[in-house]
Every structure is written in C-alpha cells, then in structure tokens.
C-alpha cells in the first residue's frame, strides 16, 4: 500500500518528442547584445532557449532561478558582463558570488550541475553565446527532462496524498 506512494528515484527516459526547455537570463548591456550579435551574424544555435533580458546580471535574484526550475525548466543559463565591464560598476561582482553558492545548493537538492550554467558573455562574443547555447542544450538533452512540477505533484505537494475528505 505504502509502496504505491513512494516515487522511485529512477532516471526518466527522455520522452518521445521531448525538447529541453532552457531559460536564459541575459544582462542588457553585454550578454543580450552578445546574443543579438549572434543573430545579426546569422550564427546557428538551437531554439530551446527562452531569453529573458534583465538590466544587470546583479539583478537576477536566485529566487528567479529556483522558480524557473520549480515551474518546469530543464536548464537555466545566467550570463552577464565580464568582471570589470559592468555598466553599473559592481553588479556582476554580486552575481559572481551568488551563482556558485546557488549552484552548490541546487546540486545538493539533486539538480545536476550541467543544468545550471553561469558564464560571462560580452557584447562582442556572439560566437561564444551561440556555442554556449549549443553545448548547454546538448548537455541538458543528455540528462533528460527535469520534470519538477510533476514530481512534486506525485509527492502530494499542493493537494495531499489522499483526496478523500475524512469523517464524511
């Protein structure tokens, strides 16, 4: 009886037709312009990345990243200006300290390190951005779907395990 409620810790085989969904947070001044440069130069990269432009990588609250995973993202990318290039002088210094700490926490929570990528991309590095997206998409594809929302629903989060009211 109890066994039916215990979710086995198995590697989910990649579902047929499944495509990785990756959320990328890019800073306005360097990385987004870098992604733009990739587009202008007609560089090819997979369409699995949903780009969210923010004014500065220092503005990316770790909560945005945990929320992305919790709502079904298979991978998350965070890109900002190289250290020393921040338009706001020290915004990316904060990103530099936050992201490794967040990554350690995510790994402890069972999210593979390859699913969360933090990299500096300057406005001129369109080639680097396209390469990064290709690499990350490939790595996440190999890992398979993360499926956090389904997993939590199976464990009763939000609805409990028994839907029957008791004492009726």
């Amino acid at each position, binding site marked *: 009886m109890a066994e039916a409620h215990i979710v086995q810790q198995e590697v989910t085989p990649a579902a047929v037709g499944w495509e990785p969904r990756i959320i990328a947070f890019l800073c306005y001044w360097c990385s987004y312009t870098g992604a733009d440069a990739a587009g202008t130069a007609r560089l090819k990269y997979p369409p699995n990345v949903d780009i969210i432009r923010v004014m500065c990588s220092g503005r990316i609250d770790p909560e945005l990243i945990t929320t992305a995973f919790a709502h079904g993202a298979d991978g998350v990318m965070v890109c900002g200006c190289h250290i020393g290039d921040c338009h706001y002088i020290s915004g990316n210094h904060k990103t530099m300290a936050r992201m490794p700490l967040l990554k350690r926490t995510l790994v402890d*929570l069972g999210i593979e390190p390859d699913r969360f990528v933090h990299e500096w991309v300057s406005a001129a590095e369109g080639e680097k951005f396209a390469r990064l997206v290709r690499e990350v998409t490939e790595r996440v594809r190999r890992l398979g779907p993360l499926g956090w929302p389904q997993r939590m629903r199976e464990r009763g989060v939000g609805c*409990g395990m028994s839907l029957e009211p008791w004492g009726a």
Partner: protein
Amino acid sequence: MSEKTDKAGGNGKLKIGMYWAASCGGCDISLLEIGPHILELIEVADVVLWPCAADFKYQDVVNYPDQFIDVCFFNGGVRNSEQEEIARLLRRKSKTLIAYGACATDGGIPALANTKTVEGIFAASYHDCPSLDNPAHVEPQPITQSEYGELEIPRFYPQVLRLSDVVEVDYQIPGCPPQAERVWEAILALVGGQLPARNSAVKVACFDKSVCDECPREKRKVKIKEFKRPHEAMAEAGWCLLEQGFICMGPATRSGCGALCVKANLPCRGCYGPSGEVQDQGAAMIGALGSILDASTEERAREMIDHIVDPVGTFYRFTMASSDLKGRR
C-alpha cells in the same frame, strides 16, 4: 470528558482546538507561554480538542457537527496519512483553521527530511543508527496480520507537506515556536474580529520586515572576509553577526520574534520563514550573502563558499516545504 464536550455544546463561548501533527510539541507549550492570559482565554473560550493537554479522542471530533470548532490551531507538518486525515477532518469541523508554528506554515525542521529519500530515512532510523539493536531488520509495515486481526498504522509519505498543501488554511502564524506576545495579540485580534480577510497566504502574529529591522546590533558596512561557525569563534557583542562572518539568517527572515537569538549572541536561524513578498527564504539568503562577500575574483568567492557547511540545511532550515523546490529530487 463527555461533560467537557457537553459544556462546550451550548454556553456561547468560543470553541478552540489545538492539534499536533509532525511537530515537537513546542508549539503546544508556546500557547501556554501567554502566561496569566490563559485564564482570560478560558473566560471566553472552551477547549474542545488538545491532544497534548487534555484527553479528547478522534471520535469526539468526528461527532462534532461541521464548523463546530471556532478556531483550530494546527501545529506540525503532514508526514503521514493519519496527519492528513486529521487535517482534513479538522478543516471540516473548524470555522477558522490556523497553521500554527514553523512546521505547519513552512515545513519546519521535519521538512529537512525532504532532502532524503524514504529508503534513506528508514535505513537511518531502523538499520544504521549505532544505538539500534534490530538484528531481524524489522521495518514498520502499514498493515500487519496478527492474532487480533489486521492491524494498520499510518502510511509514511514520500515528503513532508505543510498544512496548506493538504487543506485550505485561513491564517498562518510562523515561528519556532511563535512568540507568546505576538500570539496573544493575534488571539485578541481574532476574538475582536480584527484579523485581515482570510487567506492562506496571510501570516499573522508577525511583521513583514526582516529580523534585521528588529536587531539592535551595529552595522559597520564591511564585507565578509571569511565564514565562521558559532563554535569556532567568539562573536563581538553589539556588532552585526553577518559582518563578523557568522551566517545569520536575519536578512532573509520575517520579524516578529524580537530578534531573540541575535540578542543572545547567536545568529538567527530563520524560524519565522521568508519575509513579506519573498517565497523562497534560501534563495533570498543566497542573494543577500552574495552581495556582501569580500571576494574580488571568482576563485576567491568559491573558496569562501566552500567553507559553508551544508548550505541547504542552513538556508532552508525551517522552510524546505514552502521553498520553490520543496525538497530534493
């Protein structure tokens, strides 16, 4: 027993209940911490369920009409099927259901088990614990055949859930345990009909700002040079603990406790959960820590971060079940 129930039946007094699920019992004690006010409470209210303090049976609760209990304080998270059943039962029988304490609100300490698997928890509890003598490797089974027939014990769930994961909750009172002064204010507001509109997201008996807002320590606006644990160094009195390198959850924690721990020279552990507008306390703390590290290179930042022991257990100590990710995969 039946006398109590009868008396509660029709004397016009408020009927209050207090139930414990996956909790330590500290919440029950904290309600008594209101001290002499308990006499005032008894003036206006009758207790109709309180397993910790009085002898009521589940069947008594089943026999109450629906919505019989005016205010039910529910402490503890939901770890097994019994607790879920009683949570659903009390929801039916209560006009106002309040998640009381960190466990019912955010999962609390028991929800740290969400970072482990059920198999791991059973192995640790029934096989690997050094003080254990279990040569037959017995584990509790939900159903056991015995000479008295089929015996059933509650099923163990794969995850600790907070109360609002199972039933609709009217208010939440955070804290481990909630501070008596705040609780008494909330009870007065409740009796006087002054609580805000019912909403499971509404936290009462606390404030919206962070613990830093109540903290008397001096902020010198210096960055963290290295991380220390409380047993590794003496904290300088009167100076912000975080700036001294002790991981104090103050910036990411809701106020209401009156900064009790920091006043006792100990870093805040984060029991009141995330402050207003924040969902994920751990992520908020990572954000706060990241902006005050004294690291000029990525390598240095990594070095410092490696000195943090158990980041998940530190940042999500009381809020694993209400965090974004809610547990380990």
